[in-house]
């Protein structure tokens, strides 16, 4: 049976402390998901608004499920690629993606199943709220860019609430694009 003395014990503990200090997990390595969903949600919002105003023909509504399906397909394929190629997947990151998919899943269900109960842009606002939840959740883990982006999305919600019905959807879409998409872009640019 192997034995260990106090000197070796100290050496082992110091190594463990050094490793734990060096392996503080970095949250969020997937900037591309934010870019794709920021652009997709803004696109859906604007198309729905343009069709409701009669600027675009109703057939344009068919682009919405196509864009959403393309976004979902990209997320699944890219997620699988990342799982296979990243050298480290942190526990925090796994939790974050659980929250992300849960929040977006709930928003999607509300969008599809509760759309007719609300009037105006409630469905888009729900998406915006979901994006704000995701960003602020990341922000709570110390990501300053996510904090700023989350506040931006919340500000766009408040601004849209007080804006006229002619422009409120565009205000929301701007928040989605700048907040969600912008955060994803900044993550991609900051990636080392």
């Amino acid at each position, binding site marked *: 049976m192997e034995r*260990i003395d106090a000197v070796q014990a100290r050496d082992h503990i110091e190594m*463990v402390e050094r490793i734990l200090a060096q*392996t503080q997990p970095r949250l969020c390595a997937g900037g591309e998901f934010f870019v794709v969903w920021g652009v997709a949600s803004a696109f859906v919002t604007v198309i729905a608004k343009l069709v409701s105003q009669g600027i675009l023909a109703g057939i344009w509504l068919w682009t919405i499920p196509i864009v959403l399906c393309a976004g979902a397909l990209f997320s699944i394929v890219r997620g699988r690629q990342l799982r296979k190629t990243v*050298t*480290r997947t*942190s526990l925090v990151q796994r939790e974050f993606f659980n929250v992300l998919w849960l929040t977006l899943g709930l928003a999607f269900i509300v969008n599809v199943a509760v759309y007719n109960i609300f009037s105006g842009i409630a469905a888009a606002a729900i998406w915006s709220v979901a994006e704000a939840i995701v960003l602020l959740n990341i922000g709570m883990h110390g990501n300053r860019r996510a904090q700023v982006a989350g506040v931006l999305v919340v500000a766009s919600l408040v601004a849209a609430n007080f804006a006229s019905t002619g422009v409120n959807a565009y205000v929301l879409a701007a928040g989605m694009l700048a907040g969600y998409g912008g955060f994803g872009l900044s993550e991609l640019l900051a990636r080392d």
Partner: protein
Amino acid sequence: MDELLLSKVRLGVVAELLNYDWVTFSELARSLDVSNGNLGAHMSKLVEADYVEEDKSFVNRRPLTRYRLTKRGRDAFATHVSQLQSLLKAAT
């Protein structure tokens, strides 16, 4: 004391895996600065003891092996570190 974790390399592996869901073999070898052969032998022992879980796959036709800590490994690590700290305390 946990005999398996008395090895500095194996203890290092478990510490490396503590904050992570999955870590690849090559990343562990790089981070701990050990040869592939040496690490492979240590990983086999940890897998046999059910301290770590192994996942083997192919990416672009190249083998990819990654590991994650099991609950048994996590518990063993916590107990072992606590025993090391007790040993240090008793010695001072």
